[in-house]
């Protein structure tokens, strides 16, 4: 039942994390907290020759500085891989996440209203119903004596279902969408030709969906994007497709990872789980703390021009990873940074990024994460990992979360 096959790397295993790191090496996400901690002590910005040159800042200060600096760093490409897309700035291939100012501001404003907190709150009932049906299916498996997996049977289904419904895409295509996400975000260190072919497959699927919506317009985000105007004109199909690609990719395994990591924590920390079950008023601070400690998303930039950054000679077109999860664990910014405190009151975490590219879907992600955790522990107050921590399979690449999370539900 493995859903994840590690891509065949053209680089080989990492030999040294400070000088040869590779976030697509399976050891990276599994040991991320220890690797970031070590690097933070050794140097604030690591470098690797992989992917044509990649920098890795690990302190809150350096990550924040780059996130705010749209002059020296471009968002033209945001997924480090063996292929640098040739979509030019300031629009990029998946606007507005791949866009730079000033275009970014105007493209983002088209998308902000449907993702505002009040609009997203309307989805709470549907998310809850979805969680109930997934939990019912898990109960049936348990009753039949079958093993259950909190990532495969639960977390991975929630965001893909919601974003498919928002976009008006076929719900039964969820495996295809998870395949796209895997191709884009995990198969990053393989042969460039294969990556280009996977982009072509995705483009063809999205164009077919756009054609279907042109023939049958409906009340969903896809039709909204095809109808909305920017600078007095409708968006060209390739921009509609780019925006949909962003929503589909960014909306799926990010939240899936956050839900999975939160359940992983509760499966491995009995005291926190029991405290949260006994006192649901802790849920708000607990969710923010899970987002801080297990933030799933590392973004990336390309260096826009040669410049010196904290003593690092950054060259145009080198990659820069922006590990917001590492920033969230920096003891210079957070007291007890390495401890998970589910009642942490002051929590200025950067799980959804910093600056103009703040995650557009943060309100939806928070809603899905909170409802998913609430419903899970309401149904299964007592559960542990089925096996050891080594039986948990973590993703590779810029999105960090459990892809296989076998659990054992304990009935009293």
């Amino acid at each position, binding site marked *: 039942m493995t859903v994840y096959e590690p891509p065949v790397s053209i680089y080989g295993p990492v030999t040294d994390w400070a000088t040869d790191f590779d976030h697509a090496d399976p050891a990276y996400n599994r040991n991320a907290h220890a690797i970031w901690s070590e690097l933070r002590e050794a140097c604030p910005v690591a470098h690797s020759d992989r992917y044509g040159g990649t920098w890795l800042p690990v302190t809150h200060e350096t990550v924040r500085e780059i996130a705010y600096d749209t002059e020296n760093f471009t968002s033209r490409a945001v997924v480090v891989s063996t292929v640098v897309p040739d979509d030019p700035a300031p629009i990029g291939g998946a606007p507005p996440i791949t866009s730079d100012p000033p275009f970014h501001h105007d493209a983002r404003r088209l998308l*902000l209203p449907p993702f*505002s*907190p009040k609009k997203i709150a309307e989805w709470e009932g549907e998310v809850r119903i979805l969680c109930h049906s997934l939990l019912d299916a898990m109960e049936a498996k348990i009753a039949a004596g079958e093993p259950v997996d909190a990532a495969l049977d639960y977390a991975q289904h929630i965001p893909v279902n919601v974003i498919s419904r928002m976009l008006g895409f076929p719900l039964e295509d969820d495996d295809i969408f998870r395949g796209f996400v895997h191709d884009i975000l995990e198969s990053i260190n393989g042969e460039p030709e294969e990556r280009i072919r996977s982009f072509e497959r995705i483009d063809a699927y999205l164009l077919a969906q756009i054609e279907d919506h042109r023939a049958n317009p409906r009340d969903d985000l896809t039709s909204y994007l095809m109808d909305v105007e920017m600078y007095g004109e409708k968006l060209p199909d390739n921009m509609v497709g780019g925006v949909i690609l962003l929503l589909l990719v960014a909306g799926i395994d990010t939240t899936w990872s956050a839900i999975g990591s939160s359940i992983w924590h509760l499966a491995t920390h009995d005291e926190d789980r029991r405290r949260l079950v006994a006192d649901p008023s802790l849920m708000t601070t607990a969710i*923010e703390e899970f987002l801080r400690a297990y933030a799933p998303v590392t973004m990336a930039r390309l260096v826009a021009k040669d410049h010196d950054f904290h003593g690092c000679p950054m060259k145009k077109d080198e990659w820069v990873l922006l590990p917001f999860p590492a920033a969230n664990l920096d003891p210079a910014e957070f007291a007890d940074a390495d401890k998970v405190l589910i009642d942490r*009151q002051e929590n200025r*975490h*950067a799980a959804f990024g*910093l*600056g103009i590219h703040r995650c557009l879907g943060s309100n939806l992600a928070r809603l899905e994460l909170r409802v998913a955790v609430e419903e899970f522990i309401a149904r299964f107050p007592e559960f542990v990992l089925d096996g050891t921590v080594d039986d948990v399979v973590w993703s590779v690449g810029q999105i960090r979360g459990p892809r296989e999370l076998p659990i054992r539900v304990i009935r009293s």
Partner: protein
Amino acid sequence: MRIHVDAEKCQGHNRCYALAPELFDVDDFGNAVVIGDGNVSPDLVERAKLAVANCPEFAITLSE
């Protein structure tokens, strides 16, 4: 005390709106706006401080 949101810094994380809805609202784009004239009654000062301490963009200030 008075609460203030720097509209240039606010990126719409909505932490303040979640923590202190008596003091903050959000517009159609999800950006924070202070309710009323920004005066914070004594019983809401702790909430206001929480909003300041949880804004990822350092966009909120509380002043005498």
